[in-house]
């Protein structure tokens, strides 16, 4: 059969091809593949499948270099989500995904539908979602537009997850002018399943019906996938109607129905209709199963009259899934969905003939030979070259930057840093997220370096966290890529969990720019090195390119979503000091590193210097020390040193729990060869601040792993405040002043916002 145009189809012109984002070479490839001119419908299908978002055409060769295997990895990259075994027959499915472009245009719905999409990716594997995380990057909060974005995005994430009833338990947020105009919204979902329940999105079995499940198809978000592959420019505003609206209520029904459907054994495969909707879900399922498919657009349940096959295939209406069922079980499938007030409609069939065919009743509107529609896309390896500007910034001698007069008093500097939105408590955000629903949250947002969840019926627990310091990656991509993994692993290990595997979301600029592609290659390289060294393979992820606007690209931001396992969840350790009289132990060492620090950026407005060195052997040793000593019960609290350095980490340990604050008296005078500001605010890697339950045992374990460990002070009653002796000066602060700076900063910044009155921040009721 051959596809022929429908009455009223636009004529295929070079301009129309260009509008669909296809290069002339790509179009030639399409014509060769078909052996004829494409129909309009075929052009639409290919423009979606060969978009960056679906095809990974600029990133796939680089991604292939990442380590993806370990005995506990049950499913690596290539499926809806990665899956690892955690023993006892239990497995964890998890994945992170970006919704940057939709959120920039319509923050509330863009972020909400991002959460919806990643949830579906996890429950289509047969896993019950148990936790959500989110990683956000914004410009400066001084800008009303940024406050509007923050308000809408946070509310969108909260409303969706809260309504579905999945706790949002962790994440990370940073603010930097580099993200002005291009906020990053990465959402991660973690689910749990029994190993035997794992199901893959692989169409199989000739004659099996293909079923559309869930919401009806409307004209929402047509070409969202190609949209996500373009720079945000001024005329993006004209593309606004593409934005989809989420319905978390339907999602909740879909979640329950899907898990019931999988348990029923009636289905072969399930996939979310995400970016490029029906097109990509059906093509990807066919490709994995190496089978042909036929789909009849007249059978797809639609929300609006007169939708064309083109629109039906490319719609990104939310809360829909594509199911391949066993032949003859159609009624059983319908019955399960009907229980949840959802529809299921047979819209096609798995066929032996190796083609991807779309019909509208009896009219063939698209037909592609072969079953490799997605991977037959052209692959590119663009030129990669480091930008001269970054080389110069990195080479700058940041120690030559003079201190400000106010820094004479290091308490001033500390309170300034604690109120930097990047460091300050994110309570304003996570108070909008239900973090305790499902009653598994042992350590929620703000309580520990990573969130900890118990697993019912097991002694084990999971620790999860997202991280990435884009400023480090910008200034030295390979090192920044390593640090992103190392920091996420450290955060997870600080709760007592062994880091096990990662998912990642690669947020970069336009890959056709040599300096951007260089960042991409280097950062992924560094990430891979760290994953190998820390034994945390990559199980999946997502690439978001073209995060640019006329003023430039975002910082290269390879967000890491880390999953770790605690053997005994009752040992899970928080970051807050637990009471007076405990010895404070510093694991790791102090260095004279200030480059790329939050101190330079927030206090001096300087983004320069090399990021701190990241020695992966030492990171590994630190992690081993943390896991072993915490699981043995020798540790009362643990917090790693990250943005703001040791002084900020110590302050956070004192004030993190607003209801039970604890003072500390610390001496760092043995490092008097270092400048005080490097000692206090330098961001040397591989460090953590602990309080010991059993000091000799802790020191012994550190010694065994070759990790420097010293007692630097002890905890005191809250009334004693925080005091840190450094060479030549003394930092003393009341906990009240530290708390005011840290706990109130974000709320104060956002209270200038009018976003709480904005409509996007108000609907639905």
């Amino acid at each position: 059969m051959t596809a022929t145009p429908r009455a009223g189809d636009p004529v295929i012109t070079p301009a129309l091809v260009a509008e669909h984002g296809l290069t002339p070479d790509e179009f030639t490839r399409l014509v060769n593949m078909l052996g004829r001119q494409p129909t309009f419908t075929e052009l639409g299908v290919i423009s979606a499948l060969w978009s960056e978002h679906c095809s990974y055409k600029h990133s796939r060769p680089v991604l292939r270099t990442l380590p993806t295997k370990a005995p506990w990895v049950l499913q690596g990259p290539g499926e809806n989500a990665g899956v690892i075994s955690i023993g006892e027959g239990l497995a964890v499915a998890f994945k992170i995904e970006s919704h940057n472009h939709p959120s920039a245009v319509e923050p509330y719905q863009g972020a909400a539908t991002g959460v919806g999409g990643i949830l579906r990716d996890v429950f289509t594997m047969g896993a019950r979602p148990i936790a959500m995380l989110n990683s956000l990057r914004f410009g400066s909060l001084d800008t009303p537009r940024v406050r509007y974005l923050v308000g809408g995005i946070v509310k969108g994430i909260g409303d969706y997850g809260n309504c579905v009833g999945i706790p949002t338990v962790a994440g990370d947020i940073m603010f930097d002018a580099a993200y002005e105009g291009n906020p990053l919204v990465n959402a991660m979902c973690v689910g749990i399943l029994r190993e035997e329940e794992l199901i893959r999105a692989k169409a199989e079995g000739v004659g099996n019906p293909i079923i559309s499940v869930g919401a009806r198809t409307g004209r929402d978000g047509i070409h969202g996938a190609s949209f996500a592959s373009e720079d945000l420019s001024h005329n993006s505003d004209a593309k606004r109607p593409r934005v989809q609206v989420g319905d978390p209520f339907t999602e909740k029904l879909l979640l329950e129905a899907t898990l019931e459907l999988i348990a029923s054994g009636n289905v072969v495969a399930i996939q979310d209709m995400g970016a490029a909707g029906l097109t990509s879900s059906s093509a990807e399922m066919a490709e994995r199963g190496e089978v042909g498919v036929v789909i009849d657009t007249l059978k797809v349940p639609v929300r609006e009259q007169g939708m064309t096959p083109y629109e039906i295939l490319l719609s990104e209406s939310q809360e829909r899934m594509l199911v391949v069922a066993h032949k003859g079980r159609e009624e059983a499938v319908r019955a399960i969905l009907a229980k949840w007030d959802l529809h299921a409609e047979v819209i096609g069939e798995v066929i032996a003939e190796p083609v991807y065919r779309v019909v509208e009743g009896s009219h063939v509107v698209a037909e592609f030979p072969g079953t490799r529609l997605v991977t037959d896309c052209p692959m590119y390896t663009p030129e990669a070259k480091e930008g001269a500007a970054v080389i110069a910034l990195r080479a700058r001698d940041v120690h030559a930057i003079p201190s400000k007069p106010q820094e004479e008093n290091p308490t001033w500097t500390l309170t300034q840093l604690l109120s930097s939105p990047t460091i300050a408590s994110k309570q304003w955000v996570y108070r909008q997220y239900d973090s305790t629903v499902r009653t598994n949250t042992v350590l929620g947002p703000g309580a520990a370096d990573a969130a900890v969840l118990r697993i019912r019926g097991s002694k084990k627990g999971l620790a999860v966290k997202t991280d990435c310091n884009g400023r480090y990656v910008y200034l030295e991509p390979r090192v920044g890529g390593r640090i992103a993994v190392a920091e996420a692993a450290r955060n997870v290990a600080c709760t007592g969990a062994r880091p096990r595997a990662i998912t990642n979301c690669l947020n970069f600029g336009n890959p056709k720019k040599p300096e951007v592609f260089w960042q991409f290659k280097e950062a992924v390289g560094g990430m891979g090195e760290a994953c190998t060294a820390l034994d945390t393979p990559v199980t999946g992820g997502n690439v978001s390119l073209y995060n640019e606007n006329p003023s430039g690209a975002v910082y290269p931001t390879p967000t890491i979503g880390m999953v770790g396992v605690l053997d005994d969840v009752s040992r899970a350790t928080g970051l807050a000091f637990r009471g007076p009289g405990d010895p404070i132990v510093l694991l790791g060492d102090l260095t004279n590193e200030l480059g790329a620090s939050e101190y330079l950026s927030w206090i001096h407005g300087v983004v320069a210097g090399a990021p701190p060195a990241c020695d992966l052997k030492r990171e590994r040793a630190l992690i081993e020390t943390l896991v072993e000593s915490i699981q043995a019960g020798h540790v009362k609290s643990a917090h790693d040193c990250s943005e703001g350095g040791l002084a900020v980490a110590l302050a956070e340990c004192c004030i993190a729990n607003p209801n039970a604050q604890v003072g500390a008296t610390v001496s760092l005078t043995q490092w008097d060869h270092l400048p005080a500001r490097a000692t206090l605010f330098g961001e040397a890697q591989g460090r953590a601040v602990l309080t010991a339950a059993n000091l000799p045992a802790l020191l012994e374990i550190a010694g065994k792993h070759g990790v420097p460990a010293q007692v630097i002070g002890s905890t005191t009653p809250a009334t004693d405040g925080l005091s840190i002796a450094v060479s030549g000066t003394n930092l003393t602060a009341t906990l009240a002043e530290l708390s005011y700076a840290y706990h109130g900063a974000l709320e104060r910044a956002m209270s200038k916002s009018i976003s709480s009155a904005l409509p996007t921040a108000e609907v639905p009721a």
Partner: protein
Amino acid sequence: MKFRVAVHILPRRGILDPQGKAVTEALHSLGFAEVAEVHVGRHLAIETQADSADAARAAVKAMCDKLLANPVTEDFVIASVEAV
């Protein structure tokens, strides 16, 4: 002069209106089978000072454009302007 201006804000046609859908289905199950469609939006009653009704209307339109309605997903109508 003081005016009371009423504004209706409704989800744009064609954009998913989950709230309207839920209410429609609820009305059906309550026996109001004759209901074809419901859309749920916001009603704003704004009391404001202006020199004339036209000026009040223009000011409220500016408020809607700037803040009250979401240009991406909603349409608004200024339903009435009354002197009070």
